[in-house]
């Protein structure tokens, strides 16, 4: 048995020793360097593009929108984002001209010699003033007016969260070249088939004439979900025009300034309760800033909307949400995908309600939290794997939450103490897999190949981006077949070698694609049993069996496709039904201390219990929890992209401050395993869950420490000091 064991991470040693090569370090013979000339106004008509005549342009290849053979479009959900701005620019740092040169420095120099003149158009930066709505949703349950009419108290609140940079260790990078009539695109990316889809439209080519291959990828966090499609288009345009390979590697500043970030959001709550804290009505309004193009905004908003009411049962709910256009670089996928924004609001709102009702927020949560059999705002009945209460209870107990609240109250009363101490709590759910009918549309495929020499190869387009995909696949396949995990290798995601198992996003890789791998491996197992008499027990026997099963062919593939569970129903039109197949759950307690002189916050301890169904690899799962929570703490306390005239002005790691290892507190992670009958070995999703709720727990702890509820992230020393003046 491999599932449940801490198999070492397969990509670990190469990354640890530096043997793993990011694209920037991969030598491609004859490769030129591509650079991008970007807009310097947030909104305007392009009047002219001119090239400094003193520069040797004949050494370069230059590409503009005119060079695009197919559609000038980065195909995603809406057909609105051009690959290269043509006529109008709608945000700062929008790509207009591409240049490639044999020498990287000369390419950058060439970019400086391009002059673009604009006729300025008025920009909109304030999402609340934008009139262009990309998408809106409405969820309603019960009778809101009746709920408020019956309420003893009504509590309102407004909560704001900022954008956030993914801050992966490797910047965006893609190379392209043509080989035997096939356009090859290779680089740092999460979703090879998304890139393929975009490339088909840009180049009017069939799938056989385009091949997308992932290279070792230094993190994604959503930042390499949709953006690589744009970059791949750019690199391929240059490569085809130059007739040679071209590589585009962003530097950190360009990556931060030009690529996608988390959607900033404002969320308003009006909540009606009985005097002992039973929820009667939740009226919630969500506005998100999509930036200049729709990209993934509709689905980010969808997830945000579906998580907005929190992990609580309430008979009367209305969630109204919209994502709007502003003249800033498009916001996009980021771990949590809209949920951290709305969960921040619903969770911190409990602190306000607690003040109004004079009942502590833990008790209030306990009175309303989802249990087995609860019904969500979309009318979904939670019939299995509901670990919310257990997570809450374990987190509260292990963190000594109740005792510490009292202890810190006493500490904070003594003016001689140099700090204020606070402890804060939050709880959440996170839908695993695509929303609603998403998984049905995706119709993902994955499989296993048995070569005639007895190699076992997992075939999936899911990418290893540092989260442990390859290790997990081997463990799942190992147990499905009943042979050691070391017998399996995992194919490089390459659209000419692996089937489309959907994007590596939405906490779906283990639960959905791992499930497919498990099913495919079981087909292989049946084939072994039928054609060889049993599953091989030694590698020598495996070789013999493989030869028999392959019958002279080089390999035999066992592929399966996603099948919708029959009892899962969802209506996109009314937003009612089973929004997700299942939810993961988490609770977190953040224990912190604030310096009275400087208002600097030090997180002393994080205790968190997370119900992920089954930990295929507990150590990897714990790594996800600690990493994701730390990213959440960064968003809660430090990180804030600052925009001026539509462009991020702190687009460097000097001034965009993410936590260092010294800022990472001690963690106690409790894995709760409430198995999900349809996940492989009971597994649900873990990738995004830990990112969801450090924010509100920090804000609650700051409130406990200082007595001030700051409804905005990040809770910087500046904000805390201002709140205390």
């Amino acid at each position: 048995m491999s599932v449940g064991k801490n198999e070492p991470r397969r990509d670990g040693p190469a990354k640890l020793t530096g043997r793993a090569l990011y694209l920037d370090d991969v030598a491609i013979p004859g490769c030129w360097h591509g650079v991008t000339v970007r807009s310097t106004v947030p909104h305007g008509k392009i009047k002219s593009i001119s090239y400094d005549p003193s520069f040797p342009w004949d050494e370069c290849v230059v590409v503009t929108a005119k060079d695009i053979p197919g559609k000038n479009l980065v195909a995603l959900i809406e057909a609105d984002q051009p690959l290269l701005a043509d006529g109008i620019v709608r945000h700062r740092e929008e790509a207009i001209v591409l240049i490639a040169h044999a020498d990287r420095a000369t390419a950058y120099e060439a970019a400086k010699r391009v002059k673009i003149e604009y006729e300025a158009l008025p920009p909109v930066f304030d999402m609340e003033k934008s009139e262009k709505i990309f998408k809106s949703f409405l969820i309603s349950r019960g009778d809101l007016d009746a709920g408020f009419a019956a309420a003893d108290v009504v509590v309102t609140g407004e909560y704001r969260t900022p954008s956030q940079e993914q801050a992966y260790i490797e910047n965006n990078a893609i190379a392209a070249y043509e080989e035997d009539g096939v356009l090859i695109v290779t680089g740092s990316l999460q979703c090879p088939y998304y890139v393929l889809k975009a490339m088909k439209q840009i180049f009017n080519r069939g799938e056989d004439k385009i091949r997308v291959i992932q290279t070792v990828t230094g993190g994604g966090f959503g930042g390499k979900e949709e953006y690589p499609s744009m970059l791949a288009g750019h690199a391929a345009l240059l490569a085809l025009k130059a007739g040679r390979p071209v590589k585009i590697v962003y530097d950190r500043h360009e990556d931060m300034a030009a690529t996608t970030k988390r959607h900033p959001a404002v969320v308003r709550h009006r909540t009606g309760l009985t005097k002992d804290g039973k929820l009667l009505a939740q009226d919630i309004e969500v506005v998100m800033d999509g930036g200049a193009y729709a990209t993934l905004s509709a689905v980010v908003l969808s997830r945000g909307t579906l998580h907005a009411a929190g992990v609580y049962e309430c008979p009367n709910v209305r969630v109204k949400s919209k994502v709007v256009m502003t003249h800033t670089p498009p916001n996009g996928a980021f771990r949590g995908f809209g949920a951290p924004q709305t969960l921040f609001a619903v969770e911190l709102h409990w602190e306000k309600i607690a003040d109004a009702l004079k009942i502590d927020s833990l008790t209030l949560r306990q009175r309303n939290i989802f249990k087995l059999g609860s019904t969500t705002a979309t009318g979904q009945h939670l019939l299995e794997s509901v670990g919310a209460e257990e997570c809450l209870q374990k987190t509260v107990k292990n963190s000594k939450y109740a005792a510490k609240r009292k202890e810190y109250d006493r500490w904070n009363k003594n003016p001689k103490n140099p700090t204020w101490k606070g402890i804060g709590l939050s709880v959440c759910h996170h839908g695993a897999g695509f929303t609603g009918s998403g998984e049905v549309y995706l119709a993902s495929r994955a499989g296993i190949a048995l070569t005639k020499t007895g190699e076992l190869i997992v075939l999936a387009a899911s990418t290893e981006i540092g989260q442990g995909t390859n290790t997990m696949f081997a463990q799942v396949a190992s147990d499905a077949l009943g042979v050691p995990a070391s017998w399996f290798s995992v194919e490089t995601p390459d659209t000419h070698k692996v089937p489309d198992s959907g994007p590596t996003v939405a906490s779906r890789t283990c639960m959905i694609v791992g499930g497919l791998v498990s099913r495919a491996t079981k087909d292989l197992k049946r084939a072994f049993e039928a054609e060889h008499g049993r599953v091989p027990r030694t590698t020598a026997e495996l070789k013999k069996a493989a030869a028999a099963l392959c019958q002279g062919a080089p390999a035999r593939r066992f592929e399966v496709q996603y099948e919708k569970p029959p009892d899962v129903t969802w209506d996109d039109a009314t937003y009612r039904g089973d929004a997700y197949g299942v939810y993961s759950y988490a609770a977190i307690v953040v224990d912190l201390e604030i310096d009275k002189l400087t208002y600097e916050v030090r997180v002393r301890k994080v205790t968190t219990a997370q119900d992920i169904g089954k930990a295929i690899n507990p150590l990897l799962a714990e790594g996800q929890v600690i990493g994701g929570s730390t990213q959440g703490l960064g968003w809660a306390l430090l990180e804030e992209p600052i925009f001026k005239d539509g462009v991020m002005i702190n687009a460097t790691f000097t001034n965009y401050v993410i936590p260092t290892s010294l800022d990472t507190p001690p963690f106690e992670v409790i894995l709760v395993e409430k198995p999900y009958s349809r996940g492989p070995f009971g597994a649900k999703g873990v990738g995004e869950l830990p990112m969801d709720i450090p924010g509100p727990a920090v804000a609650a702890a700051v409130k406990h420490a200082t007595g001030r509820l700051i409804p905005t992230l990040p809770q910087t020393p500046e904000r805390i000091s201002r709140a205390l003046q």
Partner: protein
Amino acid sequence: MRGDAKSMTVLSPRSAAEAVKTYAKVPTALPLAGGTDLMVGWNLGQLNGRAVLDLSRVAEWRRIKVVGDGVDLGSLVTHAQIQAHPVLRKRFPLLVAACATVGAAQIQNRGTIGGNIANASPAGDTFPALAVYEATVRVIGPNGRRAVPMSEIFAGVKKTTLKPGELIEAVFLPFPDQTPTRGVFRKVGTRAAQAISKTMFAGLIWTAKNGELADARLAFGSLAPTVKRLYAVEGFLRGRRLTDVSIAAAAELMTNDVSPIDDIRSTREYRLIVSRNLLIAFLKGEVK
């Protein structure tokens, strides 16, 4: 990475004298010590086409020398070397504390005291300590040597008063006549390491037997284009007792000497509030 090594030339003098001579010949060259500031510009492509005067072979500038009346820090002495030196730890603890807050271990191992000063960032972390210890910057150039008091070395943001062809040779720290009664260095950044200071404070006080303040030296960094000694506050406090009233008055006077701004790292309001808090707490003996 926009730096282009092949467009650059590297000059490698082997001694102080040779460094000065080479620099005089190529006055546009950029001195390179630890490179922790310079390489940031390299990464942005700002050094392309330039000559670099690599000081790494000037061995005499790597030494810490304890002399009769103080300590002479060669300009190439690193933040890590300073922290490890027993005499500095004992006699100049504020500088040692400041060096321990520069960047993180990697930066402290490479970054030098000379580079820190020559870079002249408003947020240079060693400056408040150097200011209250009344250090002198020893400079060598085509016209020989001169000593520049810490209070005169900076001309503004990222600007020193070094003349063309001049290099920093050393920093001299005089032993205080009397051991201070109390001393504190405090840096306020955003995170536990790799933080650029929003404000930083260094303070030394000497109290007389009768309880009056014999002397005070107080300095803030990051609150003005250059490090600021609080001369007005120091003058006010001299000869007074530290009481709630005199301390409050001192805190009010402080704003005459500093002029913090709103920028991408913090706000004027926060910098003022926190700096005042630090000053008051220091004078009250409540900050360590």
